[in-house]
């Protein structure tokens, strides 16, 4: 019998959430006023949870390392948010969104959680519109939709290429309303450095004021970890520079199991790496695959000529191009899910068809879409026989209205005009499906400690579909946690305020102080970035888009050695007092150096390929991921035992009663 209890409610799938809500214990408004909740992270999940919990009447404290909650990295999400509204009448439904998500996740997600997500999705859009989020609309004044990878309907709502920004500003505005009412106290430029447990329950955190350097103790009756994903373990990713695993990792070290750490999403359409100086990678939204076609030259000699600058992509005739996604996956074409598209691009580049100097890039071409849109627009404008130049100009206008900010971003970085020449793109680390293990209530294995958004593991299985991260973050925060936390807190109405003078707080603070001083006193020879870049290289080369047993074993050894060297030889100027960005970075990299090893251990233990986890030993003859449902249809949840190598594996078996498990095909 597994120690993991997912606490999925009984009854038919479609009734579980309603039944659950009807049966939970509630907390009276008078008692809510005496209960404190800490929310760590103010992205979509954290900000929406904080606003909703405060709205209900709890006293909420939020923490973010940025100077304002509005800057959390959800802000950078581009393409859109899914919801089963079926406004387009194209066959969408709650069940279809559920089905697409489970299939997209390669049958490694928990049915009940995914269904609940699909069920509340439509309500998210209602909520955001009521908050004044300016989604894109059509000429009739109704909300517009577009399509994303891995689905055959248009269910994605968007605000140009800045959907995450608009949704986060909506959640931030809801937070502001509660801050103004005195129901939320927002601690900005603060970083959580430990979780405090009292009698086995989460009762507070140790946070560092990043301006003064002071360590602070904050108590609460429940703690929500909404600190995002850990893609920066790869150093280069589309994450923000500050995105980190520290809050989640410290929670893990205090007893919360960490689930599926090796499930990482490598996003197919990012701007390729240009040199060693690079600090981060920039995403080009998946929505571009609605209109962009991905290709490489069909002939090796053409690819070489392009790499050497002797040939331009626009010179290549249609028959000399290989639209490899359309060729391999005719049903979904350019809109296959991310893991599939990334692997296909890597395969072409590995075969020598890459088109930039490093040979690690493919084209994303908008010329067909520009001409198609231009033609349609010229007809609408009453121009019967428009010439090619007019059609192109009108088409570029349409494309600009849809994706203008992305095209501008691309041009600024690459110094090429994507309206005139195809974009160059390559896969990059983008999102982590793994995270803290949570049950149906989003509670971790520590009572009173919850995890929401990218920080938990639950809904996306081994691969997340595009535009589903925003949906999950807001679903968790606005609609799920407000119920599930209340049920837990109903037993806490007599507890009273938690004192921060308890020995548990003292001990946790001392441990944090000791770690900081050890780092500052190392006074070694290498800056933090040196270690972070080295870790990133190991991760990318051995735990990246393709993994094998030997590489993973090497990665485990190398990361452990690097971690040892880090504590001996890192150089951090300044002291633990006052603002010290190098110390902030060092504390984050220290945790990445532990997580990285567990990541490799997890990947090594999963002897199958599924979603974003591709083990070279386990593939079909056509190079597709080969799942092993008989032996690996489970969630890997790791228990901390002192060092990553000693982590103990617990398995949560995944049971599919409402969906037929089969080989995932997008052909």
């Amino acid at each position, binding site marked *: 019998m597994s120690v993991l209890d997912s606490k999925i409610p009984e009854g038919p799938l479609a009734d579980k959430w309603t039944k659950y809500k009807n049966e939970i214990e509630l907390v009276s408004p008078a008692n809510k006023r005496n209960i404190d909740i800490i929310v760590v992270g103010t992205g979509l999940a954290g900000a929406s949870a904080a*606003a*909703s919990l405060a*709205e209900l009447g709890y006293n909420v404290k939020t923490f973010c390392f*940025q*100077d*304002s909650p*509005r*800057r959390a990295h959800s*802000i*950078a999400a581009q393409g859109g948010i899914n919801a089963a509204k079926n406004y387009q009448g194209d066959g969408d439904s709650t069940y279809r969104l559920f089905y697409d998500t489970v299939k997209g996740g390669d049958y490694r997600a928990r049915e009940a959680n995914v269904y609940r997500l699909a069920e509340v999705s439509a*309500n*998210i859009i*209602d*909520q955001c*519109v*009521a*908050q*004044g989020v*300016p*989604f*894109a*609309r*059509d000429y009739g*004044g*109704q*909300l517009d939709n577009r399509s994303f990878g891995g689905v055959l309907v248009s269910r994605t709502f968007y*605000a*140009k290429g*800045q959907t995450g*920004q*608009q949704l986060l500003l909506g959640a*931030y*505005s*809801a937070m*502001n*309303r509660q801050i*103004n009412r005195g129901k939320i106290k*927002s601690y*900005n430029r603060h970083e959580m450095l430990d979780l405090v447990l009292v009698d086995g329950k989460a009762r507070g955190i140790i946070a560092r004021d990043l301006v003064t350097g002071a360590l602070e103790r904050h108590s609460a009756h429940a703690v929500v970890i909404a600190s995002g994903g850990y893609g920066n373990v790869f150093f280069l990713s589309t994450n923000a*520079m*500050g995105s980190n695993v520290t809050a989640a990792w410290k929670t893990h070290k205090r007893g919360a199991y960490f689930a599926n750490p090796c499930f990482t999403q490598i996003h197919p359409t990012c701007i390729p790496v240009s*040199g060693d*100086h690079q600090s981060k990678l920039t*995403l080009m939204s998946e929505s571009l695959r609605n209109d962009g076609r991905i290709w490489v030259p069909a002939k090796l000699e053409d690819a070489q000529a392009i790499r050497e600058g002797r040939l331009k992509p626009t010179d290549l005739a249609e028959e000399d191009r290989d639209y490899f996604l359309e060729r391999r996956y005719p049903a979904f074409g350019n809109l296959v899910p991310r893991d599939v598209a990334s692997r296909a691009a890597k395969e072409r580049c590995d075969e020598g068809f890459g088109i930039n100097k490093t040979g690690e890039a493919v084209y994303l071409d908008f010329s067909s879409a520009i001409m198609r849109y231009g033609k349609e627009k010229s007809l609408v404008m009453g121009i019967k026989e428009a010439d090619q130049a007019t059609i192109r100009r009108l088409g570029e206008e349409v494309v600009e209205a849809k994706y203008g900010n992305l095209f*501008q*971003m691309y041009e*600024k*970085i690459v*110094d090429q005009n994507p309206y005139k020449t195809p974009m160059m793109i390559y896969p990059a680390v983008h999102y982590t499906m793994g995270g803290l293990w949570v049950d149906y209530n989003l509670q971790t294995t520590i009572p009173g400690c919850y995890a929401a958004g990218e920080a938990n593991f639950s809904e996306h299985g081994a691969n997340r579909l595009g535009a589903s991260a925003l949906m999950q973050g807001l679903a968790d925060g*606005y*609609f799920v946690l407000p119920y599930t936390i209340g049920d837990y807190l109903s037993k806490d109405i007599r507890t009273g305020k938690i004192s921060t003078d308890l020995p548990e707080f003292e001990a946790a603070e001392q441990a944090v102080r000791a770690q900081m001083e050890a780092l500052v006193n190392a006074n070694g*020879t290498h*800056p933090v970035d*040196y270690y972070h870049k080295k870790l990133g290289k190991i991760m990318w080369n051995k735990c990246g888009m393709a993994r094998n047993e030997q590489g993973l074993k090497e990665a485990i050894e190398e990361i452990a050695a690097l971690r040892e060297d880090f504590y001996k030889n890192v*150089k951090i*100027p*300044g002291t633990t007092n*006052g*603002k010290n960005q*190098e110390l902030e970075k060092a504390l984050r990299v220290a945790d990445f150096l532990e997580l990285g090893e567990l990541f490799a251990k997890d990947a090594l233990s999963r002897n199958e390929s599924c979603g974003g986890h591709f083990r070279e030993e386990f593939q079909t003859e056509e190079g597709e991921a080969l799942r092993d449902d008989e032996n690996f249809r489970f969630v890997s949840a790791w228990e901390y035992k002192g060092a990553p190598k000693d982590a103990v594996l617990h398995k949560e078996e995944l049971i599919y009663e409402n969906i037929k498990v089969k080989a995932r095909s997008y052909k």
Partner: protein
Amino acid sequence: MKLTLNIWRQQDASSKGQFVTYSIDDISPDMSFLEMLDVLNNKLILQGQEPVEFDHDCREGICGSCSLQINGEPHGPDRLVTTCQLHMRMFKDGDTIDIEPFRAKAFPVIKDLIVDRSAFDRVQQAGGYVSVNTSGNTTDANAILVPKHDADDAFSAAACIGCGACVAACKNASAMLFTSAKVSQYALLPQGKVEATTRVLNMVKQMDLEGFGNCTNTGACEIECPKGISLENIARMNREYLSASLQG
């Protein structure tokens, strides 16, 4: 590229700051401005000096964290970009570059190039929201039609990233462009109209309390805004404010 950098160094809010000159070479034109500072910082650390602190996060122009005054201009010489999107190809080999924090009474320096922009948060808290319960028990999203033109204009205003370049560009350190962008977003949408009167009055009041200056219509904010937020928003806020004051 080889460059000379004059960088503002200041230990903390209460210390006196000064420019310090650094020279740096091996800079590639493909680097972003912040990657150039990363190179400088790693060099300083190896020399046992404290690195230059600056705010940054997403490094793709959307979070609004980065905030440098470069050669006298917020976010530097390029248009419609933030500092993190500014590339070194905008400079020439041998250039001298002055790098300062954003300067405004309402944005006190925290350290080196980092300023405290929490005044912006407080302006938003004063009314930058729609007072709707977040339980999701509202009407269907398509129940109220919004003309595409209004939705597009509201989006353009809402694209503000709150970086503070408008304040840093303004000779009066006015926050009118920032405040008006939020006021406009809601004024243009039916969902925001209900509270339009109190919103504009409260937000303008808070803006004044924070010590931002007045608007004298020089338009520098619009030119320096990395997101192209239009001066029309200020005109709209002035109209909203006038009408709210008359009602009020």
